[in-house]
């Protein structure tokens, strides 16, 4: 009797599930037929099968759905599935390609871009898209009060790029000075619906618009998907945008998938468990250790793992060279005398076993670095900068020339007899950084230097670097948005917001920083690619010589997906896996 009941209950549950699934299916809006005169873009990707959903895990809950103000990774991962841009960087080819702009022309002086928009395009709520929306979008992004993270890139020669409507489908962009790789700028600016956001903008509330709890129908964009629901603490669900402006070779409107579900799973290890259990379809931002585990049984479990090679991220060690130090820090000021000596930094660099870091921390799934330019920046690598090799004799020689001595017990002391000892702070939640620091600690012990590894909570680490300047050395990593030097401007300019080793400089503190300033600004306005490369080569040579950041390793981009996911084409540019979400489809099960 008991078992009979159980069976009945099971059956009931199955039926309920089926009903739920069924209702989910039918509620997905069917793609609108392509209208006459609608200038859809035809995708080159393999034609797929419509329907289905994929589940993807995010490391954290997104903070906002507003493309203008979002800065955090999870928010952008979701938002970028819902927005469209004028000129797009193809993540696979790394080249620009037409998106909402059908075509564009550049004036001879490189200062005026005339962009022709596609006709007949509609936002995800069915309202038409035209030049007014483009002008509005640029106005919003460039508004100082809104303080968009992208704003810096849109200010050329001290003036924001001026967007002017020529007619309903033509917009002219005017720049104060010629700007290298200007086309790539358009990739970061999402086209906003003027009809939805203008009232908010006028009321000064645009920065607060499109929070996570906004009604789904109010979040309107030009991306392949649109918001369906947000469940706090659990998931964001996106559904197909029935008006999306791309079609496949067979003239079927994209995207193929009905839904993308983003789950919030807060650690890499938990994400790996979900992925192996088949609960998620795609996994991204994997560490080399978990990658090795997953790779081992990929065939048996029906997924495929991809090692995409080095990405744009570079890890580095840097010393506190700030001129403004916290109060009562005589000890730090004393140590800064060592840090400021370029020979000291060179000796540290020579003493570090980068290939050991690559081997132990990244399991050889990384590339050792001499500069900030990782192998992913194919066209930008300066061949004149030698690969870094560990050399203890060279390090000892440099230290000796800088006036350091070794005591009888092997400890290194400075000219005044003070033993050389400093601490490296790292993020406690990032095992790889702490491991890197532990290797450096062991390497420098050989030079007689005592290093203390101090793992800190990430927020307090950033607070020490950016606010209080109360640290001696730090191991960190920076990523990059694009294979171009321009997004790195804020790191290298002496007044840049990420000029980590000496923040808040009003003028360059050293001659080499002044030279970097000059070179970076010059490359920004140079249109000739070869000339630009030459300028950036020089920057790399300075970085390799003066070592404001002692670059260490660039980890490979490691991702994976179920083998049934069609058109999956991960790339080393952000967002590695879902950048072509419009073309992804679920293959029929054999």
């Amino acid at each position, binding site marked *: 009797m008991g078992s009979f009941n159980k069976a009945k209950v099971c059956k009931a549950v199955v039926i309920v599930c089926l009903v739920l699934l069924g209702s989910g299916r039918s509620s997905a809006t069917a793609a609108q037929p392509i209208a006459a005169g609608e200038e859809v873009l035809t995708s080159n990707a393999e034609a797929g099968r419509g329907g289905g959903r994929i589940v993807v895990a995010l490391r954290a809950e997104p903070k906002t759905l507003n493309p203008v103000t979002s800065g955090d990774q999870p928010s952008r991962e979701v938002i970028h599935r819902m927005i469209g841009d004028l000129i797009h960087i193809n993540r696979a080819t790394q080249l620009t390609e037409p998106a909402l702009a059908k075509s564009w022309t550049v004036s001879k002086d490189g200062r005026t871009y005339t962009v022709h928009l596609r006709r007949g395009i509609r936002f995800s709520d069915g309202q038409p898209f035209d030049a007014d929306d483009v002008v509005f979008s640029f106005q919003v992004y460039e508004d100082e009060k809104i303080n968009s993270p992208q704003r810096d890139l849109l200010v050329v020669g001290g003036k924001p790029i001026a967007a002017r409507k020529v007619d309903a489908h033509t917009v002219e962009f005017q720049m104060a000075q010629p700007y290298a790789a200007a086309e790539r700028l358009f990739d970061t600016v999402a086209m906003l619906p003027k009809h939805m956001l203008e009232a908010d903008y006028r009321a000064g509330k645009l920065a607060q618009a499109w929070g996570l709890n906004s009604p789904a129908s109010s979040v309107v964009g030009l991306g392949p998907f649109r918001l369906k629901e947000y469940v706090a603490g659990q998931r964001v669900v996106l559904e197909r945008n029935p008006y999306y402006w791309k079609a496949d070779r067979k003239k079927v409107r994209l995207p193929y998938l009905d839904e993308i579900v983003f789950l919030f799973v807060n650690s*890499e*290890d938990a994400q*790996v*468990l979900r992925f192996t259990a088949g609960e998620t379809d795609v996994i991204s931002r994997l*560490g080399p*250790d*978990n990658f*090795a*585990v997953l790779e081992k049984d990929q065939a048996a479990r029906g997924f495929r793992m991809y090692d995409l090679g080095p990405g744009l991220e570079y890890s580095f060690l840097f010393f506190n060279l700030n001129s403004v130090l916290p109060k009562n820090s005589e000890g730090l000021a004393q140590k800064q005398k060592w840090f400021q000596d370029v020979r000291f930094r060179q000796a540290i660099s020579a003493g570090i*076993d980068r290939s*050991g870091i690559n*081997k*132990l*921390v990244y*399991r050889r799934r990384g590339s050792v670095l001499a500069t900030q330019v990782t192998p992913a920046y194919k066209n930008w690598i300066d061949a004149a900068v030698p690969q870094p090799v560990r050399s203890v004799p060279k390090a000892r020689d440099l230290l000796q020339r800088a006036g350091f001595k070794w005591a009888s017990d092997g400890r290194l002391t400075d000219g005044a007899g003070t033993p050389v000892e400093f*601490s490296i*702070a790292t993020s*406690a*939640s990032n*095992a790889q950084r*702490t*491991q890197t*620091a*532990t*290797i450096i*600690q*062991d390497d420098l012990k050989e030079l007689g230097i005592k290093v*203390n*590894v*101090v*793992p*800190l*909570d990430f*927020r*307090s680490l950033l*607070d*020490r670097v950016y606010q209080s300047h*109360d*640290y*001696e050395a730090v191991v960190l990593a920076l990523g990059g948005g694009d294979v171009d030097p321009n997004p790195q401007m804020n790191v290298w300019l002496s007044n840049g917001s990420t000029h980590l080793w000496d923040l808040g400089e009003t003028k360059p503190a050293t001659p080499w920083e002044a030279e970097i300033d000059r070179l970076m600004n010059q490359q920004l306005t140079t249109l000739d690619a070869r000339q630009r490369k030459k300028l950036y080569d020089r920057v790399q040579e300075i970085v390799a010589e003066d070592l404001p950041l002692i670059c260490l390793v660039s980890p490979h981009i490691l991702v994976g997906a179920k083998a049934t996911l069609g058109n999956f084409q991960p790339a080393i540019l952000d967002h590695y896996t879902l950048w072509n979400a419009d073309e992804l489809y679920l293959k029929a099960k054999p």
Partner: protein
Amino acid sequence: MRWLIALLVAAHAIVLFAGFFAPYDPAAQNRDFSFASPTRLHLRDAGGKLHLRPFVYALKDSATEAGGYEEDTSRPHRLRFLVTGQGYKLAGVIPSQWHLFGVADEGRVFLLGTDRFGRDQLSRLLYGGQISILAGLLATSFSLLAGALVGCVAGYFGGWPDRALMSGAELFLALPWLYLLLGVRAVLPLHLGPAQAFLLVTSVIGLIGWARPARMVRGIVLSAKERNYVTAARGFGASGPYLLRRHILPETYGVLLTQATLLLPQYILAEVTLSFLGLGIAEPTPSWGNMLGALQEYHVVASYWWMFAPVLLLFPLFLGYFGLAGLLQKRMQTYAN
């Protein structure tokens, strides 16, 4: 039950004299042997010949498994006993170079495998025990002492001291410790030496932990002071301190012992949490807490079983403590009867 005590004494002696029993310096890295599995001891060589003395084979990178190692049967190394090696201080005092065992020259013996940096797990386990056991025991006794004292005073005297002390305990239980510790970290100097870190870990853990035992002890004291034999003793003119010491406190021993056996493992693990805030024992100094921290990574759990070594040791050790507590309790009961 004598064997239990003997076992516990032996375990603690081994940890205390870790320098002698550990073959290597716990911080020494062998970058060619990251995550090497435990070295196998052989008596029979690859040719099938039997040897009187155990030996190990040198390791080389595995030809079949990326990141794995295999034995190089062309290079055997005899296991030797009482060898000289890396200098250390026996029990932290006497300088010495003698190790219980080791292998000659470039051979390596990792009886419990190695961690990511190729550091000998056995050596780390033994050295780590020094810090973890001491910190755990100290913090536990601190918590219990403070808890017993506060609980007794609050329970016995009642009235405003009771209200004040118990509100204090509640306040301690309710404090958002994580944020408080973040604040503490911010005012401390960036680097803490091993001794400072040790003291800090001990006092932080002990300080957080006293409130719960205090409340328990108070409850027992409250009920005990109304018992007939206590009232009788009071009737015969016994003083407050005498009553507490002779009649009431013994009632709480059971609870304190149980608490001790529960708190000790908790406290050893608490150090993992503290190291996430930069308050734990820093690299390269080993502790059971930071060794167990490695098990939070999925790939370690999935691929390297020997990283569980601390667990294998902690388990019998805690069982031993538990047994010891039971024994003491039994003794006290028979004594009381």
